[in-house]
């Protein structure tokens, strides 16, 4: 057997052992009627611990609990009432936070969510397809249904981008990820990013995060992510960050400072219709005459005027500043002259 094959076999075995150890931890805690002590767990070589290095086994046990918690299985430490701090802990699955409440989901609720899941699965811009399939199976079981299998089950579809899925997974786990990215000019670069949020717009998913190379918050489009490496390094998303601010409008795509602009819209438009138009950006309120008033920041006043014209049938009109109104009138003038 050559060295490469031997190394590959060794890696495969280690992978298999890690998964087996953590599954076995779940198995013994799930099947045990009483909590297990730390000693019972970390000294058990059949379980996958029990090395000569207890400190190492304790760290491994902690990491394994974290892996299970990421998957919704919460192992908690318990001490008997009155027990000394120095006494050994015991461990059990926290059933309340791990297992779904009995009758958790009515069939009607499960059907509502299933329809939404299938609607999301039918879209091309979803970065969490595997998560949706997993939810689908869970809902079927909880709702007591035998639903029609989704045509998108299990096998990869043509739309899947493994590199983009890797960024999604890194975002879920809050781990930094290194990837190759092709910018709009076709130049490839390597980035290391802490993904703070994901948004879907115009048929694409976009990952927004702190980019180590530039030191700033950047946006990365799914189909330009070429290759991703295994994520490392934890981070936290700042409390002030709001992914909703990154859903872009045509007047965002310019250099320069963003300035406040205001538009009015027809009073008889429904709120969902207006919110679909404005992408949830800025501030929306009713004026005294019942019309909608939308205040937002724009980097490009000409593009903002153009945006208002494109939606004139919705009663969209520029209100402020005067330069926006002038830009709007100028565009109209150009078109009238061209059609004279």
């Amino acid at each position, binding site marked *: 057997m050559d060295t490469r094959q031997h190394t590959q076999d060794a890696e495969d075995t280690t992978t298999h052992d890690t*998964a087996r150890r953590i599954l076995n931890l779940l198995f013994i805690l799930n099947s045990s009627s009483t909590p297990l002590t730390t000693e019972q767990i970390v000294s058990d070589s059949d379980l996958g611990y029990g090395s000569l290095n207890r400190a190492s086994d304790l760290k491994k046990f902690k990491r394994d609990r974290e892996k299970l918690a990421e998957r919704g299985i919460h192992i908690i430490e318990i001490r008997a009432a009155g027990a000394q701090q120095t006494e050994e802990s015991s461990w059990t699955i926290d059933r309340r936070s791990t297992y779904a409440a009995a009758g958790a989901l009515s069939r009607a609720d499960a059907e509502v*969510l299933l329809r939404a899941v299938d609607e999301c699965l039918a879209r091309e811009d979803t970065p969490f397809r595997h998560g949706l399939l997993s939810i689908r199976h869970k809902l079927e079981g909880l709702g007591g249904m035998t639903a029609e299998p989704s045509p998108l089950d*299990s096998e990869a579809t043509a739309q899947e981008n493994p590199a983009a899925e890797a960024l999604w997974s890194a975002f879920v786990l809050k781990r930094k990820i290194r990837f190759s990215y092709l910018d709009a000019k076709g130049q490839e670069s390597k980035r290391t990013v802490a993904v703070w949020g994901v948004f879907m717009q115009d048929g694409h998913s976009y990952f927004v995060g702190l980019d180590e190379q530039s030191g700033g918050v950047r946006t990365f489009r799914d189909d330009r992510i070429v290759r991703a490496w295994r994520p490392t390094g934890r981070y936290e998303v700042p409390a002030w960050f709001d992914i909703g601010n990154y859903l872009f409008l045509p007047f965002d795509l310019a250099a320069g400072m963003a300035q406040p602009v205001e538009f009015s819209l027809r009073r008889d438009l429904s709120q969902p219709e207006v919110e679909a138009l404005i992408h*949830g950006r800025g501030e929306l309120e009713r004026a005294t005459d019942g019309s909608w008033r939308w205040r937002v920041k724009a980097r490009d006043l000409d593009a903002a005027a153009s945006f208002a014209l494109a939606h004139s049938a919705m009663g969209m009109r520029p209100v402020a500043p005067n330069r926006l109104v002038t830009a709007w009138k100028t565009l109209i003038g150009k078109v009238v002259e*061209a059609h004279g």
Partner: protein
Amino acid sequence: MAKPGSLTADRTLTAGIKLLEALSAAPDHRLGVVDAAAAAGIGTDDLPAVVDTIGALSDRMSGARAAIETEGDQIHLYGDAALLMPLRLSVEESMIVSHMIDLLDLDSETRQRIREGLMPDGDEDTARGIAETSRYGSWLVQLSEAIQDGVRCRMTYRSLTDDTARTRTVDPLRIDDEQGRAYLIAWDVERDEERRYRLDRIADVAYTDDSVAPHEVKTRSTAESLRAHGAAARLVAADEETMRRLTWSGIGQIEARDDGSCVFTLYYSSKRWLFDQVLAAGGNLQIVEPRELRDELRAYAAELLASNDG
């Protein structure tokens, strides 16, 4: 014993938990191989390795072991030792479901039931960090139910050609997603023809006591509907860049000219919509034919200017 295969430790772990959960919930704790792989989120080629991993689980102290076998085209979990009660949502699943229930605009009681029954304890704001352009409006759930149960509906809707919303009687057929927008495909009972309705323009839906009638449905895209029912105009785009930015469904044949401009046919349903897009292009788009449409555009532009004076 199957070779460990292509799965990482993390994926094997996730697949193992999902497979145990699915088998625990399945009748007689038995699943077909294809269903088992789908439930585990893996390909059927990777399933033997995961089954083997589960088969190796045991508790030395109690003597319990996970008894799982592949029998022909089925996976069977024996006994009680490895049974898992239904789990709450994982971190990832919780983030996705939180986002979905925000998107669906579910009532507060339904949200509360889902959160209490399914979500992990703690942070209720797990949807933070996911956003998308609103596309479903407030009536997706009701319409989905009407489609499933075959219920005729009264729907208040404003189309591009309407000044105000009006009420229609429709037989809802299905929901379609096209170019980032969600549409209800339904039969307009009064007009006796199939129509597409943007979900975010639906202001109200009420169920009637009637069931939907059978209809001869032609499954048409927006482009096909526009060609069948819309008006046609010839336009010129100033350059290829302007042409490239036009993502309209009604664009027909395009002819590139020597000067870099592009002449194209456009099928449209609303003159106002067409005029708005030409105005928004600020001179980079021009209507060529019919000539009377150019006159109408100038008149429309004059009205717009007058509407914003004062």
